């Protein structure tokens, strides 16, 4: 094995088609960051139409093409729907998940368990390239006749099945390519998840028992099981929808559809549109935890490191995360309360939904209790990690009125839902991902990021996240439906239009606030101050490797002597005791 790690494989094998988990991790991270910014840009365009309905989009309106804008540069309703569908798809499946799992998981997890690489390096490479293919498919769909998919990121049939099929290019249109793209992305996740599970179970170094694993590794392990078990149903459903579109089967198409006055009897009929929703949400609810758990893992690492004390209730945290994983499989239909569900079903799903809120409260409480009697260092990663706590709290709490079926009647499919899940994923998960980038950047590049630019990034980002999503909760309580091209069409929408304008300005300002980060990221990677091996005085194994770690990671295989967060141990010389140093070496 060691000879394998010393030979020089050449540029292409080393940096493009690499099998090294660190190179793949960086590839995932950079690709997904680009997709995150692209997906966010789509939203910045939509926010113009929302704030100023019917006004031409300034600067770029003329360049957006016939599928998105009219001759005057005004965003078309179908263009708006396409941007909305693609924003959701790109942010979730091409941005956050690949960054949290493919990026952070790939890079950090093997280091934290002392492994030289993932268990199946070639599978790892395949997973990344299948993801890239999925991304290319999604991007290409903007340029096919009719433009990109425009039936929402949820792609509910019959709308999605009949979308664009009547144009000349029956098959190669946005929705079809979206389905193919999803099949590729899910395949990529599946390949990754198998690899993660095997790696965590088999490649831990000597002494690293399951309850000595860093919390981040536990989070990745549970996430991998969710990816493994929840994603195949949507992959199957995607293929079925493809059949409905391409070959007029009727898995999701009921009998007797009449669209624009035309009886659509090419579909045999007898299918159920609700079947899609069940399959979709069976994936998409665990998906929420795929977005959240790695973020919680990152937050745990950074909070332990910067409070200089062990994470409060490590085992409680682990059990809570495992419990969350299990429960996330039995709450999916709370997305479907208004599909005609009876009392028995809704009572089951609202009860499980209330139950799943308990471990989330426990995890948040544990993180907060970790602050008690701490010695808190306010560095940039810690600022992002701390901001995650109240933001995630808002996201979680606003889930309650949606999880109870009675209050959901009023709030379902309104902006309240948008506000809720964005608080979980944007000021929540994305803040955690930023925290992770600032935290592990010195390990990956061997250089530090600028603290000043970090502050210039953090404060406006936190402010504008709230300027965007806070008003959405108000607009939603007022009763305004989501996905409206122009909410001023309605009395209630017109009343709260001011909040929508504010939200839009928040989004554009948030875009500007990312400039310091982009500069910091690229400048520091090339010319940042050199960093030592363990700049944060951390305890976990990744900090035992050189910065950046060479191919194969560790000069000699480490042995683990203790748990992951032995900070401020009474009587110890230093306030941290790395996992890989024996007691003899520490004294």
């Amino acid at each position, binding site marked *: 094995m060691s000879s394998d790690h010393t030979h020089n494989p050449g540029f292409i094998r080393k940096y493009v088609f690499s099998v090294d988990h660190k190179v793949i991790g960086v590839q995932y991270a950079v690709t997904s960051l680009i997709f995150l910014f692209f997906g966010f840009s789509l939203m910045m365009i939509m926010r113009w139409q929302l704030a100023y309905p019917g006004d031409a989009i300034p600067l770029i309106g003329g360049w957006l093409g016939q599928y998105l804008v009219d001759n005057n540069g005004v965003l078309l309703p*179908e263009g708006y729907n396409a941007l909305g569908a693609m924003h959701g798809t790109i942010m979730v499946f091409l941005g956050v998940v690949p960054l949290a799992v493919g990026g952070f998981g790939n890079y950090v997890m093997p280091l934290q368990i002392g492994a030289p690489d993932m268990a199946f390096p070639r599978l790892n490479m395949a997973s990344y390239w299948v993801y890239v293919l999925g991304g290319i498919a999604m991007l290409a769909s903007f340029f096919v006749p009719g433009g990109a998919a425009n039936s929402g990121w949820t792609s509910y049939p019959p709308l999605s099945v009949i979308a664009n099929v009547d144009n000349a290019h029956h098959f190669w249109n946005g929705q079809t390519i979206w389905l193919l793209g999803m099949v590729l992305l899910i395949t990529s996740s599946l390949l990754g998840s198998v690899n993660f599970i095997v790696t965590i179970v088999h490649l831990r170094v000597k002494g690293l028992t399951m309850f000595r694993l860093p919390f981040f590794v536990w989070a990745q392990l549970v996430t991998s099981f969710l990816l493994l078990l929840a994603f195949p149903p949507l992959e199957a459903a995607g293929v079925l929808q493809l059949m409905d579109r391409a070959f007029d089967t009727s898995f999701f198409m009921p009998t*007797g559809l009449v669209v624009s006055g035309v009886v659509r009897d090419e579909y045999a009929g007898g299918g159920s549109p609700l079947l899609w929703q069940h399959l979709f949400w069976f994936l998409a609810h665990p998906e929420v935890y795929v977005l959240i758990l790695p973020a919680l893992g990152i937050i745990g690492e950074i909070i332990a490191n910067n409070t200089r004390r062990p994470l409060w209730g490590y085992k409680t945290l682990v059990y809570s995360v495992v419990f969350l994983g299990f429960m996330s499989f039995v709450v999916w239909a709370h997305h479907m309360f208004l599909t005609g569900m009876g009392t028995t079903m809704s009572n089951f799903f609202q009860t499980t939904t209330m139950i799943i809120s308990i471990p989330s409260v426990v995890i948040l409480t544990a993180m907060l209790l970790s602050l008690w009697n701490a010695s808190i260092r306010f560095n940039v990663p810690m600022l992002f990690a701390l901001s995650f706590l109240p933001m995630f709290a808002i996201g979680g709490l606003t889930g309650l009125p949606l999880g109870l079926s009675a209050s959901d009647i*009023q709030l*379902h499919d309104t902006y309240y839902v948008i506000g809720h899940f964005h608080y979980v994923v944007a000021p929540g998960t994305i803040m955690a991902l930023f925290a992770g980038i600032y935290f592990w950047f010195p390990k990956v590049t061997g250089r530090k990021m600028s603290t000043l630019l970090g502050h210039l990034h953090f404060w406006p980002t936190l402010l504008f996240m709230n300027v965007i999503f806070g008003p959405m909760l108000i607009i939603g309580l007022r009763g305004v439906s989501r996905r409206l091209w122009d909410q001023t069409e309605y009395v209630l929408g017109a009343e709260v239009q001011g909040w929508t304008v504010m939200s839009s300005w928040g989004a554009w300002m948030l875009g500007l606030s990312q400039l310091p980060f982009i500069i910091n990221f690229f400048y520091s990677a090339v010319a940042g101050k050199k960093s030592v091996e363990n700049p944060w005085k951390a305890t976990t194994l990744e900090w035992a490797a050189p910065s950046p770690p060479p191919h194969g990671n560790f000069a000699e295989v480490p042995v683990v002597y203790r748990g992951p967060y032995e900070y401020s141990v009474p009587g110890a010389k230093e306030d941290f005791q790395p996992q890989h140093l024996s007691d003899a070496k520490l004294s």
Partner: protein
Amino acid sequence: MIASSFWLPPNIAERGSEIDIIISYLHIFMAVLFVVWGVYFAYCLVRFRASANPTATYADAKAKTSKAAEVIVIVIEAILLVGFSIPVWAYYRSEPPTADKNPLTVRVVAQQFAWNIHYPGPDGKFGKTRPELIDEALNPIGLVDASEDPNRADDYVSVNIFHIPKDRDILVRLTSKDVIHSFAVPLLRVKQDAIPGMEIPIWFKATKTSEETQKIMTRAYAVPESAAGRRAEKFINRNRLLITMSKNGSVPAGTTLTAEHLKTLIADGITSVDLAPAFPVNIQCAQLCGLGHYRMKGQMVIHESDDYEAWFAEAGVEEVFEDDEEEDD
């Protein structure tokens, strides 16, 4: 009580306040929890900052308080679930108005991008429909000829305008011709997906007429400075179909606002007008249904009981479609 809390729109449904109560209690609970967490959080950040507390304590803090807090959270959630949400949902889903309450039964057939309201007429029986008879302009729900089904003779179909009487149970049988829509009337605390191939019943009872609702929803608006320009057009557009209710008489109450009126108001030095929507009770589509999703708007017209009967007697005589909503995609 009409005064809305937590930005909720006015409630004009008999049992809508039950939903409002759950939403209000939940938000109070959420706010208390958030403030308690927030105060503790802020205290920790200040008290345990590295400069104030250079050495951290290894042992976990005792967590009696937090355990108690978790138990309280569980108990409150259980109460909200069992005491409020389950019974309210039961009313909305499994306690339809009984025959002795003489509910008005109506079919609502959603389509891209309109609401077809199918009244059974005095016989209370809906005429048969067949998909192949659908004609978007003349027969939007595909009713058969009266010779084939006599029940159809007194049926009446209205597009986008949904007339109902106040204080009577309304039972809607909701379905869709094409894709999934969602019938949402925020003021009536009603929302239900309309799914092709399924007919789903929902019910509600309005306690205010449209006119009474209009009064509740009257608000003061600033008159834009440039009355002739684009801003005025937008102002009128964005506050669609608003009518002035009062103000020193230069424009009489009850008038539908136009750009001309704005000029008059500005000439008279009036900077603010009280406006109310002409149709205050909108039906929105809440489920993405295509490019016209945003304009899939219907109006509820809520009459006093007698006025409703009078309206129906007149409307039912001839097949009129108030709104020739020939939508294309």
